[in-house]
Structures are given as C-alpha cells and as structure tokens.
C-alpha cells in the first residue's frame, strides 16, 4: 500500500523536526520556521496530486494516476495521512502542553474536533458508498461476461441489457429518494419495522438492489450538509494569531474539509445536493494554491454533472467510465438484432473490453480504498485522543491528583 511507502519519509521528517524543536525550545523564530516548513510540505504534497497530465486536461495514458481515479483518490488519502501526522507533530511534539489549553486554541481545538467527528461520519458514509459501487461493478461484470460470448445472440444481449439497466438505475437511485424507474421487477417485503410477515412485490428497488443500501448513516443525514457545517466556522487566523499555533490548526481544518469534500464528490454518498457550492478553498493563501486548483477542477466536474439534470453519480473516473460504457452498451443490447454487422460487433467488443478492464481496476482498487478510508478514520480517532490526553495532562499538571 502506498500509505506504508510514505510512512518512512514522514517519520524521518518528524524525528528531524523533533530534534529541532527540542534544541530551540521556546524560540518564536523557530516556531515561525516550523510553520513555514509545514505550509511548504502541505503545498508540495497537494501539488503532487496535479499530474502534468491532468493540468493540461488531456486524458492520454500517463504513468501517474488519472485525475479522480481510484488510484488518485488513494493518493489523496495518503496525502491526508501525511499532512495529519505532520500537523500533530507541529501541534504536540515538544510543545508546552498548556499552550493548547489557552486562547485561541481553547476555542479552535474543540472546533477542530467537531470537524473531525463529522469527518468520521463522512468516512463511514463513503465506505458504504464504495459498497454500492461494488454492487454496480458486479452488474457490469455480468453484462460484460454475457456480451463477451460468441456467437452473440439475443439471449446474451437480453441478459446484458437487464444487468446494464440495473447498473444505470442503481447509479441513479442510490442517492435520490427514488423516483427513478427501476428496470426490473424485484421482490421485497414491507418496510422496516414491519415485523417481516407480509410478502409484497414492490418496484422500488432497482434490479434487486438491497434496501440496506442506505446504511452507514441515518436516513436524514446529508453529506453536503456536513461539508457546509464543517466549513461554516473556518476563519483564517489574523494578526498575531497567524504566526502561532492557530495557523496549523486552520490549515489542517482546510485540508480535512477539502479531502472529505473531494471524497464525497468522487464516491457515491447519501445526499450531495449543492456540494459544488458548499465549500471554498481560500484563494489568497500561498500554501493552498494546488488545493484551489484541484477544488476548481472537481467543482467544474460537479457542476457539469448537476447541469445535466441527473443527480450526480460519483465523479470517480472508473464510475464515470462505467456509466458511459454502460449507456453505450445498453443502447447496443437494446437494439440488438441478430445478426449484427461485423463493425458494430467489433465496436461493442472494444467497449466490453474497456468495461472489463474498468471492472478489474475496481476489483483491485476498491477494497484497498475502503481499507485506507478506515485507516483515515482510525487516524482521526487516534489523533483526537492524543490531543485530548495532552489537554488532560495540561489540566491536571496544575492540580496533581492521586
């Protein structure tokens, strides 16, 4: 996992930093320098996410991860984990613990925790979102497998058509309250809490999609709303505060909100309406330039999708590709009539190969991505506990207890 590859580098940086801190304790200039290094690292890490390739906005083959692909999102999470580790080093290591229990941090830290807890819920929702992507992947695999058969007859085409219709409707119904016509009749029982006696036929589940798909968060939870709340009280520190610890807290908050925002944009998630406008990266700050660029880029994509009227599926490159290929192959199977002209068959075969390849990338990437999101989850929990411990000690150091 890339996460572990990074591990070495940032750990060594931390130990260097710690030596610096210890040797020059209490030196304000040293603090400023540290802050500068922190900002520089943030800036560099995020600029790594912009490949030359995507900045020229072409999608040709490149050694680096395609923008918004699974691999790219995993890199984004690595960046988050690195920034987070470094942030904690800046905040805690070698510091006088009482510093973080005094103004302005006594206010900023609880706010940071608030955002952290919301980020945890986002992680859970996104974990679930990946589950629903895997559902789609399975449907795509079924479709691809039937369209790969030769000779290709109506039977296979029909089967593919069903799977693809299910796939597209699953992509649509996952985030709206329904309303999309499902392509297939499916069976279900009475709604939740009914005790489960009665059997009834309902049409509200796209191609046997599990009702359990709203799991991970309660039904009224909104991902977009979380982002809105997380960024609502984000104010850049001014004056003297700007050179103190308030700054890294602010930076880390921006990083957290940005990464969570990007995750929600990329991966299907409950209720994302208005996501494009709910969060802005401050433009005037040097360290945030790459983030500003990425934010714009993702925001454009979101708006493009929203304009199309359809509620946006995740922007994840693989999902987009699956959607596009799915639509095209659905058309193909829908109008399927034996015999099919050779060139049309070849065209479809190429798309099927593409779809199979996309499924393979999902198969390889989604589970590690889930694991990594869980890693982010645990990291956030751990850091919160560590900072709380420091606060606790700071509180108790004045009044020692048994």
């Amino acid at each position, binding site marked *: 996992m890339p996460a572990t590859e990074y591990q070495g580098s940032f750990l060594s940086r931390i130990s260097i930093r710690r030596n610096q801190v210890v040797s020059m304790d209490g030196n304000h200039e040293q603090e400023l320098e540290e802050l500068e290094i922190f900002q520089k690292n943030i800036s560099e890490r995020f600029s790594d996410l912009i490949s030359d390739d995507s900045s020229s906005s072409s999608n040709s083959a490149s050694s680096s991860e395609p923008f918004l692909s699974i691999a790219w999102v995993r890199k984004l999470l690595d960046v988050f984990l690195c920034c987070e580790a470094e942030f904690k080093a800046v905040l805690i290591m070698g510091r006088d613990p009482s510093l973080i229990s005094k103004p302005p941090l006594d206010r900023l830290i609880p706010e940071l925790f608030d955002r952290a*807890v*919301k980020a*945890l*819920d986002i992680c*859970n929702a996104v*974990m*679930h979102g990946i*589950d629903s992507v895997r*559902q789609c992947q*399975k*449907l795509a*695999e*079924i479709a691809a*497998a039937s369209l790969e*058969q030769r*000779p290709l*007859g*109506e*039977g*296979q085409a*029909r*089967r593919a058509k*069903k799977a693809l219709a299910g796939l597209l409707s699953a992509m649509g119904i996952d985030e709206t309250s329904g309303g999309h016509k499902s392509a297939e*009749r*499916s*069976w*279900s*029982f009475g709604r*939740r*809490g*009914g*005790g*489960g006696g009665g*059997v009834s036929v309902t049409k509200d589940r796209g191609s*046997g*999609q*599990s*009702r*359990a798909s709203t*799991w*991970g*968060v*309660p*039904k009224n*939870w909104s991902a977009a709303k979380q982002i809105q709340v997380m960024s609502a009280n984000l104010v850049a520190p001014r004056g003297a505060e700007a050179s103190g610890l308030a700054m890294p807290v602010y930076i880390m908050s921006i990083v957290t909100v940005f990464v969570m925002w990007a995750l929600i944009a990329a991966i299907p998630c409950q209720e994302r309406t208005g996501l494009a406008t709910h969060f802005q990266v401050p433009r005037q700050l040097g360290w945030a330039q790459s983030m500003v660029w990425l934010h714009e880029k993702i925001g454009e994509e979101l708006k493009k999708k929203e304009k199309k009227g359809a509620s946006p599926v995740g922007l994840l490159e693989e999902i987009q590709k699956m959607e596009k290929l799915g639509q095209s192959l659905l058309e193909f199977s829908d109008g399927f009539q*034996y015999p099919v002209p050779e060139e049309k068959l070849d065209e479809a075969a190429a798309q099927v190969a593409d779809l199979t390849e996309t499924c393979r990338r999902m198969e390889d990437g989604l*589970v590690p991505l889930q*694991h990594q999101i*869980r890693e982010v989850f*645990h990291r956030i*929990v751990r850091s*919160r*506990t560590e900072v*709380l411990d420091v606060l606790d000690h700071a509180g108790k150091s004045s009044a020692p*207890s*048994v």
Partner: protein
Amino acid sequence: MEDGESTATDHEVQNHLAAAAKHIMMALKACRNLTDDTKKVLSDLNSCLPNKLILGECGGWLLIDSEEQIKHYGEVIMRWETELGMIWDHGDTEASSYLNAVTEIQKIVKTIGSHPMLLSNGKQKELSLRAHHILQRAMSKLKQELMHILIQHKQCFAPEYMSFRSHVEDAVYDESFISVEEDVIESLSSGDDSGSSSDKCLVNLIHPKAISSIKSIASVMFASEDDKEFCRSFVNIRKDALEEYLAILRMEQLTMEDTLKMDQNALSCEGKKWVWALRIIIRVYLRSERCFCDQILGEFGRVSPNRIFIEIAGSAMWQFINFGEAIAMGTPQPERLFLVLDMYEVLADLMLDIDSLFNEETGSRIGIEFHELLSRLADYAKGSFSEFRNCVVSDRPRKPFSSGIHRFTNYTMNYLKTLITYRETLNFLLHDLGADGLDCSPEPENGEEISSYVSCPLAQHARLLASLLQENLENRSKFLKGEPMQHIFLMNNINYMVQKIKDSELRQYFGDEWIRRLIGNLHRHANDYIRTTWSSALLLLKDHVELDVSPFHRPSHRSRCNKFIAAFEEIYKSQTGWVVPDSQLREDLHISTSQKVIQAYRGFIGRNFAQIGDQYIRYNGDELENLVLDFFEGSTRSLGSSRRR
C-alpha cells in the same frame, strides 16, 4: 438377450460406423486443406447420411435430436414466461420438470459449445442461439424464483431469544449522584446472565424444506455460469433480512456525532441494546446465516461462502463497530464504566465466534476491527475507573448537607458493590492499572488466612477506594459546624460503609481485618463525640474540680446542677434534630451517653442531694435517661422553659 440378432448386428454396424467416423474426423483434424475431390466425397457422404445426422462443413457431428429437444424443453420453459405465478408454488413436480428442462437445454448448449466448428453451420448456429435465448429466460425466471423462495421461507427467530429485550427498556443505569435509591444497580446486573444460557444454538433462518429448492436453483444457475446473478440476489435478500432483524431488535443507525452527543440515559439505553443485540446477532443469527451460506454454496467451488457471508453481514457489523468506537472515543466517565464493561464483556465473550465468522481469509477487516474495539473499550473502562478514583479523591460538597448518610457515600458504596459484579473482567483490566497509594490498605495480619478474594487486584482497588472515601468524608465533615456534628456525620457514614461491606459480597474482598479497622474508627469517633459534646458539662459534675477553684468562687452544688441541666437542655435541643438512621448505632450512642453522662449525673445527685435540695432537682436520673432516647431522632425538640424553676 434373445430379442434379437437384429439388435446385435445393428450394434455392430453402429460400432463400425463410429470407428470409421472417428477415423474420418481424425484425418480431417490433421489435414489443413481439403482438395475438391475430398470435399465431394464428403459431401456425398453427407447426403447419404440418414436424417439422424448432419455433417458440418468442417466435419463434426451433432444429433439432430437436439432440434426436437430444444423445441420440447423450450416449451416447458417458455410456458412459465406467460404464466403468472411461481413455479415452486405449484409443487415439486412442476419444479423438477422445469429444472430438468433447463438441465437438458444446458447439455445441448454445452455440446454445441464444445464443438465450435459446428457453429459455422447456419442451422446449428441458429439452434445454439435459440438454446441460449431459452436458457437466458430460464435463468431470469430462476432468479425470481430464488428471491421468492428466500423471502417466503424466511423464518423469524423463536421468541425465546427475544425474551430478554424487556430488560433493555426497563433497565437504565442510574448511578448518578442524584440517585439515592440503593438497589437500582443490583437489580440490573442480573439481566445480563439470563442471556447466556440458551444462546449457543443455531436456528433455521430459512425453512429447511426450502433448502433443497434453493440448492437445485443454485446448481443450474451455477452450471450456466450465472453464479454472479445468483449470489447478487442471494446477498441482497439476505442482507435485507438481516436489516429487518436489526430493526426488530430496535438497533438504530446512528452517526458518530449523534452518539458522542448523546446524554447518559439515551446512551445507556443504546448501549444496552447494543450488548443485547450483538450477542443474538453473532451467536445465533450470524452463525446460522453462515451455516446457511455453507449449506447452499459449499458445494460450488467457484464461490466462497465466506465471501458471500461477509457481503451479507458486513454493513451490519460496521454499524456495531462504529457505535462501539464512538463510545470508546468519549471522555472517560465513571457513569459509563458499567455500560462499557457490559460492552467489553459481551464482546470478549463473543470473540471466538467473531474470529471464526470473520477470519482473515475472507480479506475482511471486520474481525480485526472487533479486536481493536475490544482493546479500546478496555482502555476506556480503565480510564473511567481512574476517573472514578479521581472523583472519590476530589469531590467536594457543592451544597449544604446534614449529618446523615451522604449521597456521595451511598453512591460510592453502591459503585463498589457493582464493581464486584464485574470481578473477573476488572481483575483482568486493573491488573496493570497503577494502584498508587495501595500501601494504605492493610496486609492481613499473620495467622489470618489470606483468601484469593482479598489479594486480587480488584480487592486492592476496592480497599483503596474505601480508604479514599474515608479521607474524603473526613475532609467533607469539616464543612459541618462543630466537632460533635462532624463526628456524628463520620459515624453515620462509616457505619454505612461497614454495613454495606458486611452485608454484601464486598466482605470477602475487604477481609475481616480491614472491617475491624473500620469499626475501630467508628468507635474512635463515638468516643470523640461523647468527649466533644459532654466534656464541659461533665466537668460541672466532677467533685475534684472544686479543689482547683478558690473557695470564694466555688459555685454551689445547686448552681452546678442547674448549669448542667441548662447545658443538657441546650444539647438536647440541637441533637434531637440530628439524624442517626441506623437504629443499632443510635442505640449504641444512647447507651454510651447514658453510661458516660447519666451515670455521672446520678452520682453527682446522689453525693450532693442534701446540698442541692430536692425541689431544685428538675430531673432525676431516669428522666434524663429517657430524654437521651430522643437524641438523633431527627425532630428538634426543646425542654419547655416552663419546667424551669
């Protein structure tokens, strides 16, 4: 045997034909290009063939029967396309004839598939496509049948597993400071044990008679490489069933944020549900689910029942894990200790089941996450325990209090009693928790048998807590006015501690020696009470006092008697209002007051009866002794001034 030469010769001929055909086929395979002549010979052969056989252009044979077969079996299958209703609802014969038809078509498809060269024949190709088409319809139908069967034969849990739900709703921990009721906690802990007796069983989540139907559908769908479709439907339906079951258990989907912000009562309630539901879900439901998956999918190597099981159970498990994580993230609080211990115990108890259900081969992190959660809950429990200790050390009175049993003593002792019910778990958890200050708990004296109870970590911590409570009470008593009242307060509370310890399991953990010391303390305070209350009054009754005072200032016996009675009335007025709830203690105090004070008074009166004069003796010894009985009854009285003089 006898039925004929004809059969025998027919056989012979067929054998010859088969052998010849094999030669021809082998030759055809070996040779790349056919000359026109050869083609002609073969095509002649083709026309010579009886209608039973058709020779493909490239050579290869297919029974022409297949066309009829496809037609026949196709009808069986397609009939259900127009018919409403479910095949399996129409009985086993219908179902097996349908399955048979599907299997036959599959055979044909397979035969055609294994001879790709046949497909270049237009007729064969068409047959093949038709067979595929029919098969596709059949698969689609079977998927619906599968879902129908899974839903229709789904079984709910036997109610016995549900029976201990009532505990959840009634039983909410209430060991907060506000609670003075003593037995709230004890009544709760019994709820946990009732679950463990019958819960190791497996249940049928699907009616057993449906198993074979599901398996037969699985086997034909798998034969058509439709395993993905099968599994998808299977997983979705079973996942819904699990979700529905969780709804019956009233498990709610909560965000981390909600959980962290929950108040104590709501949290206790959710936590109790968690404990209760997790046990049923893991031990009964999921183990049964796992068996069901194995039963259905175990025979097909292509799909791992493990993986299917994880897909069904995964999101429900995350729900449990995340609630636990949210609890463990909270600030450790004494009020949450028992809830977290319940959670810890149930999880620790289920760990073997969890390990076998979610082993690492499945590539799922759920097992690992549960292990991590267990250790986080352990940390949280330790943290909460330390918080409790801090609280015992540092709790200060926030409002005025009386000399009676303080709520804090009540709370702490009930807390200690509840701790004992978690003996094994706490001994394990507290084992490495620093018990600084433990030296203050006495080693049992030589000769006394040291029981394992007395020496276990929990016992050491309990004694430390009791000592800390005593210190706290000593400090607290300083807030009361006057030494006598302070001593009464301490006696009341120490006596309460002694009773709590003696009357409960705590006794074994404290040991007799420790209890004797506590009682010794009680006696010390009793003596101090008498001394600080009566010493100045008793001084008046002492004859030798006269020696120290010059004869001119020597008060008369009469005046000393009056002064003593005045002092007695004063004390009477205040101390009848004090409370000593324990009747034994109250009686003891009355007795020792009588012994020390009334005896002295009697002696004084007896010795100086003449000097005082009968009419000046307002109370004789018996009267005063009766008045002493009014002490500590909690209702302030005064001796009417009318009786004076």
